[in-house]
């Protein structure tokens, strides 16, 4: 095993640890947005597909690369849009409703 691979395993371990810590703290309230978000972020696989599509390694590589770019880009665009759309729906209760509640409860 060469040193690059070894470093990659270190990266994997640390990312896994940090990820576990952060993700465990996300409340069930936001689990659907979390899934949409990881979907969007996983579109970073574009870093691989872009290179394959643009490197002119023969028609097969170009076709496969273009398919990959299309799929990943659809996830990036769709994923970030839908996550934002969902998160925009989560609103806190406004103050005056609480005031009204207290007033009527007194009767």
């Amino acid at each position, binding site marked *: 095993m060469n040193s690059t691979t070894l470093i990659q395993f270190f990266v994997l371990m640390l990312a896994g640890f940090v990820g576990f810590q952060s993700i465990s703290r996300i409340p069930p309230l936001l689990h659907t947005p979390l899934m949409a978000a990881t979907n969007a972020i996983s579109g970073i696989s574009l*870093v691989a597909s872009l290179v394959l599509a643009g490197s002119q390694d023969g028609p097969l590589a170009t076709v496969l690369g*273009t398919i990959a770019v299309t799929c990943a880009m*659809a996830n990036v665009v769709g994923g970030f849009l839908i996550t934002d759309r969902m998160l925009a729906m989560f609103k806190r209760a406004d103050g005056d409703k609480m005031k009204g509640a207290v007033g009527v409860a007194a009767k």
Partner: protein
Amino acid sequence: MRDTLIQLAYLLAAFLFLIALRALSKPDTARRGMQLAAFGMAVGIAATLLNARIISYEWILVGSLIGAVAGYPLGKWVPMTAMPQRIAFSHALGALAATVVGVGEYFNGLSAGELGSGHVIALGFEVLLGGLTVTGSLTAFAKLQEILPGRPLTFRGQNAFNLTILAIGVASLIWLVLDPTNVAVAGVMLAVSLTVGVLLVLPIGGADMPVVVSLLNSYAGLAAVATGFAIDNNILIIVGALDGLSGFILSVAMSKAMNRSFSNVLFGAFGSAAVAEAGASPSAGGEMVPISAEDAALRMAYAPKVVVVPGYGLAVAQAQHQARELADLIEKRGGDVRFAIHPVAGRMPGHMNVLLAEAGVPYDKLVDMEDINEKFAETDVALVVGANDVVNPAAKTNPKSPIYGMPVLKVAEAKSVIALKRGRGAGFSGVENDLFVDPKTSMLFGDAKQSLIALGREVKNA
């Protein structure tokens, strides 16, 4: 120099992604965090375009345009009720990208004559996991979209058959590592992984879909990790690890909430006649007491504390708007209304929260199971809407019940209970529910949406 610049951009992107995940722990910071992540993504993509291996940009442009045009409706137009199948479809897209990159890199390496065993292992895992995620997710999508029947599709000897196929897949991976230039073996491996995906999801029933969708999320992440190893790219390893872990954490949470082990979901025969019979003997017995919408509304209109317990039935009837309207009417009269959300109330993790948030319920009214369970004792009326197994006290009291041990909402502790139910039948697991025959429970039979509308009308008049 250029390479350093690209790597620094990836470093920034990875940092922003982690910040976004941290921000997702609170609803008020989540949106801002995701905008930072989107910026990080833009930086990462822009930096990749500088890569020295990229010679021409025309196909990149074509792919990006098609992808963006396809992604827009996926982000803007898909209704929230269709979220589970939308996410399953996205897993398929992500995994397809990983799989074709794997195949492409394999042929590149083949023609260049540089396929080291480490490289082949990484590519093999990428294609194996990617392929099964593609077809598995598409099968899940078809089931959730009701293109395929949602019930489990099984045949005799299915588990043995699946394991054999899987063994062939692993064997061909090992063969390929020993003999990297054998294209036929690579083809077999791809075919096997595509087949396994379908076989894995076909036997899984509609109610278990939350676990499967999370699990496929996890596989998609692992495929990304393998891609990162294959092309020596750290950001893919990081993002793949986050994706894989998030899917894994969610599937464990879902399994726990359904009182199932992983293997039980994947190879299980829950709800089979034998299991259902064992739990079919109700411990208490007794009659369900029906109530009219008018009386039920009167009780709620004068209750200081109401907890609404939405279940799968509410999502099926698409009655979340009516539930919110009813809650507003009760609050206007001075009552305090909360929604008690069981982790598996919807069709995917957190789905019910999104549906109610869309209907306009403020998120501080949406209370997770652990927090609301302490509050049922001081609740005057608990309104159960289309929920059954998740409120069944047998999970706590009857060791013989198949759902014994499953975490449930302690609705039975409320001072009184009104349950909206379509008919008198048992829940998904086929288990009788003692809550419905409890003396303090009143049953309002009928379609959830119609019942909620009637309740709203009566509360207004009360």
